[in-house]
């Protein structure tokens, strides 16, 4: 055995050990996501350096949990000195990629496709800069939104994995795993994952220092470049090019679908209380689904392309949480800020129960000709149900009835009156049955 082989052997054992260890992390994360270990999932998410920074930038607070604030801070700093510290040591998706790559290597006895992006600066992925701009611009300027679906935080590995595991996009997750497994395990890590690229940025100063040192050492040795390596690099570039083309095609296809969906989408929908205004919310929301699971009344759901903002493309909102009152009898509870507490990124501002009324979801509106009172029936449900005393009955000589009115300044759009109101369009027309006397409209319209 040559000394080199011995070193290899040692590295191999170490790698195998690391792999096992990270497989454990991965499984723990999967287990927690599937079996309701919300707190754990949330905490792991907080350790993602990308989310960590974005969250501090918008919510202007350090992650709520002190211990985890410290851990994620430490990871953040570690990333500056150890290349891809988070990717290699913490990230459950990273573990997943590694495991897939390992299995692939074992089965096919071929190394994964590798895109020469590991060396900092040279082919520093342009995408990383795009990501960064896409992340920072809307965070810093309220009026700018990202023109397409690829909000970087939507691709934060921890949240992505959590939302897949919840079954939000089973197809996508399957495709991802197959992709990792068969083709290019590291394409994700080095070309796509915003968190990974973000770590590269963090590591940049150290990388530069290392490179300068290496140069100096190289100069001293003055060694000719290896021909074989050159050869391999050119073929890699070719493959890279092809893959880039394919990606563009897929994105274009998706774009056209999204555009079509946007044209017949519902663009009136509501965000959880305390959600940041539109472009920022979509930017910061990592689509992790934590708020959905935290909400005790289950009124939060992920927006499908059916719900699109008036932004150019439906898909901007896809996967983000919206408040939907039509599914059951849930409404936003007066003494609850669970979604805000759960949100790991600050997309939902850290509101408190006393400050909650200043973060209305919407405003209730009446369709008076569907109200029971309009038909001389007994009802005062909405007034009684409103926890904020926002509904008055006002006598109208003309209609010869006391009809409900809303005090907009008091209504927070909690939806309680809406789900309890028995009035609907079937007074007039069976087909209008689903149209209620009470509904919600956006605050600012």
């Amino acid at each position: 055995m040559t000394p080199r082989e011995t070193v290899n052997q040692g590295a191999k054992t170490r790698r195998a050990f690391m792999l096992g260890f990270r497989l454990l992390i991965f499984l723990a994360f999967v287990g927690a996501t599937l079996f309701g270990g919300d707190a754990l999932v949330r905490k792991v998410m907080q350790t993602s350096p990308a989310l960590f920074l974005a969250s501090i930038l918008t919510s202007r607070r350090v992650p709520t949990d002190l211990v985890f604030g410290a851990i994620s801070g430490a990871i953040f700093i570690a990333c500056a000195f150890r290349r891809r510290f988070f990717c290699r040591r913490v990230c459950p998706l990273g573990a997943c990629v590694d495991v897939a790559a390992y299995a692939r290597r074992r089965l096919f006895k071929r190394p994964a496709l590798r895109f020469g992006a590991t060396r900092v600066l040279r082919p520093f992925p342009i995408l990383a800069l795009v990501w960064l701009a896409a992340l920072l611009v809307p965070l810093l300027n309220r009026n700018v939104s990202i023109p397409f679906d690829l909000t970087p935080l939507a691709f934060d590995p921890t949240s992505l994995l959590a939302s897949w595991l919840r079954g939000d996009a089973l197809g996508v997750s399957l495709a991802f795993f197959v992709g990792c497994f068969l083709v290019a395990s590291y394409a994700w890590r080095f070309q796509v994952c915003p968190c990974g690229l973000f770590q590269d940025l963090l590591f940049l100063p150290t990388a530069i220092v290392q490179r300068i040192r290496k140069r100096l050492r190289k100069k001293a040795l003055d060694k000719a470049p290896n021909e074989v390596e050159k050869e391999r690099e050119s073929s890699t570039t070719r493959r890279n090019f092809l893959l880039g083309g394919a990606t563009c095609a897929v994105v274009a296809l998706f774009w056209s679908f999204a555009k079509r969906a946007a044209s017949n989408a519902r663009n009136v929908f509501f965000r959880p209380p305390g959600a940041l205004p539109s472009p920022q919310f979509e930017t910061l929301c990592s689509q992790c689904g934590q708020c959905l699971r935290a909400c005790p009344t289950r009124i939060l759901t992920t927006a499908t392309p059916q719900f699109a903002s008036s932004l150019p493309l439906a898909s901007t909102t896809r996967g983000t949480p919206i408040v939907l009152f039509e599914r059951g009898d849930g409404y936003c509870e007066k003494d609850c800020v669970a979604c805000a507490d759960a949100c790991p990124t600050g997309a939902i501002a850290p509101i408190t129960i006393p400050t909650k009324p200043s973060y209305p979801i919407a405003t209730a509106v009446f369709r008076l000709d569907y109200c029971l009172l309009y038909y001389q029936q007994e009802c005062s449900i909405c007034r009684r149900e409103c926890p904020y005393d926002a509904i008055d009955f006002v006598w109208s000589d003309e209609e010869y009835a006391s009809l409900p009115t809303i005090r907009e300044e008091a209504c927070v759009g909690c939806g309680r009156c809406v789900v309890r109101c028995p009035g609907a369009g079937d007074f007039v027309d069976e087909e209008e049955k689903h149209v209620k006397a009470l509904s919600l409209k956006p605050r600012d319209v």
Partner: protein
Amino acid sequence: MFISELTRRDMLKTLGFGVGAAALGIGSAEDVARADFVRKEDKTTGQLLDGSQATPCKQLADGSIVRPAANVPKISETDVLVVGGGPAGCCAAIAAARLGVKTTLVERYGHFGGLATGGLVVHILGHWISENGKKIQATQGIGEEMMKRLEGLPNGIVNREFGKNPTLDAEVYKYLLVEMITEANIEVFLHSWASDAIIADAPDPKTGAPVVRGAVLQTKLGPQAIIAKQVVDTTGDGDVFVPAGAAHTQRAYEIGLPYRIGNLDRVNPPKDAKRPRYLGDVTPVAGVKWVNMAGPSLDGVDVKTLSKLELQHRKQIWKQVQEVRNTPGYENVYLMETAPQIGVRITRVIEGDATLTLAEAKAGKKYDDCVGIGGAWHGDHIGWQIPYRSMTPKNVENIITAGRSISAEPLMSDSVRVIPNCWVSGQAAGVAAALAAKSNVLARNVSIPDVQKALLEQKAYLG
């Protein structure tokens, strides 16, 4: 034999209701009840009175009007006097009489049932509640007995299926109440308008509060007195507890006038036609619907207001019915009847020893003197405990109230006032009054465990 097996005519005979029975010329020996009512002086020639006994009110020189002091004839002495024969009063009287005390029921009109019959408010709301996601019927006891018996009478009630809100027929219910009240051997004074309270000469030595001893009724023969050990005020407007000096709040609430329309089985609207607005709700009688009315929120004990509203409402009803008739296909619909009694929802509410609040009801507050479970007819269908202390006024002894005037904050009154809740509180008031009369204690001091036990024996539901 159940009276329901008798014919209507036999009923009149048994009760000897008014001159009707005399005019029918039935005079058989077994007609005891009727004989009671026929006095010697009732000859067609009548009796000449010179008017010297009259004691009219006087206008004094300064323009003020005074009533001269006069003796009030006593027409009855009883254990429990229930004033107001609405849903609450009838249950109170029946519950008390079933405990074996002498019970007297006074009503200003010629029928029982109050708003549920005379007011044409026929929709039973709030008798079932949702408890831990399960529907249960909170209204048991006499209220449930009434609904069951209505079911046995033709066209008595519809939508009796569990979890639905039934609708009863006002006339059938009037009849059923006559049945139940006569069965219970209750002394009845109809066409008697309680106008005053009678209090004992000396206040209660312990509390210093006035002690109610009966009520004065305004009748065609002038004021007449009934002396009672215990009084239950179920007039809805506190017509006895207010003159007795009970602390209360006076509220303005919606006053409407429901009505019924007929021939709805003979409508023939063209396809895709818009439904007319004022079609109302189903009743037990085919082709007949009742139309409710909310009306403006005003003072329901002020005759000026009530008079104005009666006129306005009648015009409005006429307009509404014509609107229906002018809808293609609905030409045959007609106005059957307007409620003989204007629909006053809430007026005076006592200041009780305990006051129901919506927040506490929602929070499921428990009372050790719970005498019934009320149910919300509103969206959440919560149930709440009715404490006995919400039925006794703070500062007057021996008067209990039930029905829509028990102590509750405004939003809660809106839940308290519905018919099933009036049945429940009425039965509780009747039981408490009977037990207080029996054991000779102040109404406030009646033994709560005994009341609860007696209520359970009467199949009431206490949670």
